[in-house]
């Protein structure tokens, strides 16, 4: 097996080859531009909607009188709408933008019939709109991660069908013989997600899985939608971006393959740890505890691989926005996954289950890891699609620090508050009133964190709108850096050679 040919081959660097490769890349990017930017733009719209809903829910939890007379904006509905907006709006649509573009780039194949993909995007957005508005108006299902009322899923299913088919079509038309690890992850994700979603919808809403089989299916889905849909694409994106930006091949091909297959095997077994202590057969949660512990294998494989690739290049985090977001996400991936493995242990879960600790963990995953990597990808990808650089490095800096400090406060506050909440819930001598009062300052810290994160998202939106509207410089003189790097050595991508995708 050729070692990461795409990234390493130092083929002759003749100007003609490079010009040809650049022309090929430009053609591929041009074919993706419409659909990918459409998915990216609608992802950002949902990111904003989700952030506002999040902020409202967060404040309501420590200030219960805020808008309390409004049925539409009662905590429960806002909380569910937030999850839908973020999970299926922002995260999923960003994931689709990421996987389409990377699949085209890595396969060296143009996107055919891009209009149908736009149709998929429109369908998805209709479903998404129906889901959020339906929940707000009182049609929610109260099945976590699947709150969307029954009229939304058909749109998602149609859209996912088109997206999966197109991704496979691009892959089958590939001109690049080597299949890079990112493509493995993408192919896995576009296969797993539709299956997961269909099984969950079917068993929970359309057939008669009642009783405790429902939460079993529910958490098999809820856990896997993160592990087998967002995670593979985000990890794959880090595998793509880090070598691209620092201009150096991935450390170990074999580690990346071990990482992929062990993720595929173990992650899907891990979901039942959400039900530890619940009324399900004991062997189910034990099986998932084992699966969760085994997850250390893929996580450490990816962590070592990314770290070794970055070694000696960490100073570049000072310059490259895309790299900084991506590496932040990659580090958060290691942290959140190791934490998750231990949370699946019974002794640990006894304390943290049913508390805000779990909420902190979930956000370290979907925000610290997935969202940050998606931001990184957008900073890298959008200029290549629009032909314009980012208009302001200051705004990027604002975005980064708001997001990074925001998630840090979020995680720290709810982890500490949640841990002690759990300890006190386990002690029947502690009155419930005391627990509620105890958590208030931590819930308040979450609102501060949420305000910061939302401010960051606004900066990001302004940048994106300016870029698409043609406000930035033409892309000629290299990317927008936080500060100019000392030498031209950072322009890695151009240096790898014509086969660089």
């Amino acid at each position, binding site marked *: 097996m050729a070692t990461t040919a795409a990234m390493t081959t130092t083929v002759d660097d003749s100007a003609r080859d490079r010009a040809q490769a650049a022309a090929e890349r430009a053609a591929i990017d041009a074919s993706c531009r419409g659909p990918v930017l459409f998915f990216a733009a609608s992802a950002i719209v949902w990111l904003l909607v989700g952030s506002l809903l999040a902020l409202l829910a967060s404040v*309501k*939890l420590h200030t*219960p009188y805020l808008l*309390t*007379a*409004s*049925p539409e904006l*009662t*905590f*429960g*509905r806002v909380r*569910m709408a937030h999850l839908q907006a973020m999970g299926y709006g922002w995260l999923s649509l960003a994931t689709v933008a990421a996987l389409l573009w990377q699949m085209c780039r890595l396969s060296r194949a143009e996107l055919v019939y891009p209009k149908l993909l736009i149709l998929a995007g429109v369908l998805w957005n209709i479903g998404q709109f129906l889901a959020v508005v339906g929940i707000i108006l*009182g049609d*929610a*299902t*109260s099945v*976590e991660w699947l709150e969307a009322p029954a009229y939304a899923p058909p749109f998602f299913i149609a859209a996912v069908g088109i997206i999966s088919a197109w991704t496979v079509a691009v*892959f089958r038309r590939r001109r690049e013989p080597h*299949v890079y690890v990112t493509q493995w992850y993408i*192919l896995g994700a576009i296969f797993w997600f539709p*299956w997961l979603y269909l*099984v969950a919808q079917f*068993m*929970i809403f359309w057939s008669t899985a*009642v*009783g*405790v*089989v*429902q939460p*079993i299916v529910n958490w*098999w889905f809820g856990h896997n939608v993160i592990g087998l849909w967002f995670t593979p694409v985000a990890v794959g994106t880090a595998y793509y971006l880090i070598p691209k930006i620092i201009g150096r091949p991935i450390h170990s091909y074999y580690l990346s393959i071990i990482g992929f297959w062990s993720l*595929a*095997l173990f992650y*899907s*077994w891990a*979901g*039942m740890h*959400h039900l530890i*202590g*619940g*009324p*399900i*057969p004991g062997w189910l949660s034990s*099986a*998932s505890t084992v*699966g969760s512990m085994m997850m250390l294998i893929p996580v450490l494989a990816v962590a070592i691989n990314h770290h070794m690739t970055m070694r000696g290049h960490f100073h570049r985090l000072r310059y490259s926005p895309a790299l900084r977001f991506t590496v932040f996400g990659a580090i958060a991936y290691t942290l959140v996954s190791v934490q998750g493995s231990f949370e699946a242990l019974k002794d640990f879960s*006894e*304390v943290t*289950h*049913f*508390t805000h600790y*779990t909420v902190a963990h979930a956000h370290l995953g979907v925000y610290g890891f997935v969202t940050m990597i998606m931001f990184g990808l957008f900073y890298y990808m959008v200029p290549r699609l629009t032909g314009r650089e980012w208009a302001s490095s200051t705004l990027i800096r604002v975005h980064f620090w708001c997001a990074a400090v925001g998630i840090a406060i979020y995680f720290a506050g709810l982890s500490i508050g949640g841990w002690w909440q759990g*300890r006190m*819930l*386990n002690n*029947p001598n502690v009155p*419930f*009133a005391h627990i*509620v*009062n105890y958590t208030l300052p931590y819930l308040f810290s979450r609102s501060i964190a949420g305000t910061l994160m939302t401010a960051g998202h606004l900066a990001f939106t302004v940048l994106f709108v300016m870029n698409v509207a043609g406000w930035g410089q033409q892309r000629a003189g290299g990317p927008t850096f936080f500060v100019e790097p000392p030498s031209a050595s950072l322009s890695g991508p151009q240096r790898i050679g014509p086969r660089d995708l």
Partner: protein
Amino acid sequence: MDRGMVIFLGALFTFSSSWLGLIVFPFQQLGHEQPYQKSDSDDPYPQPLQGIAVAGKRVYQANGCMYCHSQQVRSQRFGNWWDDNGEERTGADIKRSWGLRRTVSRDYLYDNPTMLGTMRTGPDLANIGVRNPSAMWHHTHLLNPRSANPWSIMPSFPYLYKREKIVGDRSEKALLLGREWTVHPGYRWRPTPQQWDELLRERGATILRQVLASAPTETFDLTTADGQKRLLDFWLTTPEEDYQIVPTADGEALVAYLLALRKAEVPLPEAKE
């Protein structure tokens, strides 16, 4: 073999393993559970929801109660703490009187959806119908939880109630709450000092009469600020004369559902520990 095929088959195999193991197998195993009937004269347990409780479940779903309330009682052996003598103890759920025993899969036989919940911002509700069978308490609590527990962070649900002018007699369903909770349903009302001065000027005698009717042993010196404030505090706890708060159909259904939540009550052989 084509690389795409390898990935496809591998992804199929790994994923199917968990689908078979975690979904299909438990589905088979649990699919045949039957209600429990100790003797022929006993009613089988559990019973499906009946009457308006079914609609109440919809209200519970629509308003996301599950995101703050679980519905499962965990085992005697679950979770630990140390008592005053430094001894390690376990099983807080039952000691908090959230149920007489742990809940098991059979308790959920007819639940659809099964709202086990993942968060305990509020207490567990698996057994709330047994723990607190008073419909009136639930109504006053839902209208504004702070009327029952001042420290509560549960949202008010005033939209499950309506405030209406009393025609004829006060309705039997009217909530028994002082005017501080009913003037602005969902919020806590208190007149500003100016409003209170005005109220005293306009209807001082009536207000005093109303208060003395419910607290005949009290005396109020209305020439002092302190006496006026005490009168206000008392007056706020008396019901409004012309208006009443009654549950809407949704409100009644929701409380019927809460009262039907009686898991962890009937003993089940498999729940013994």
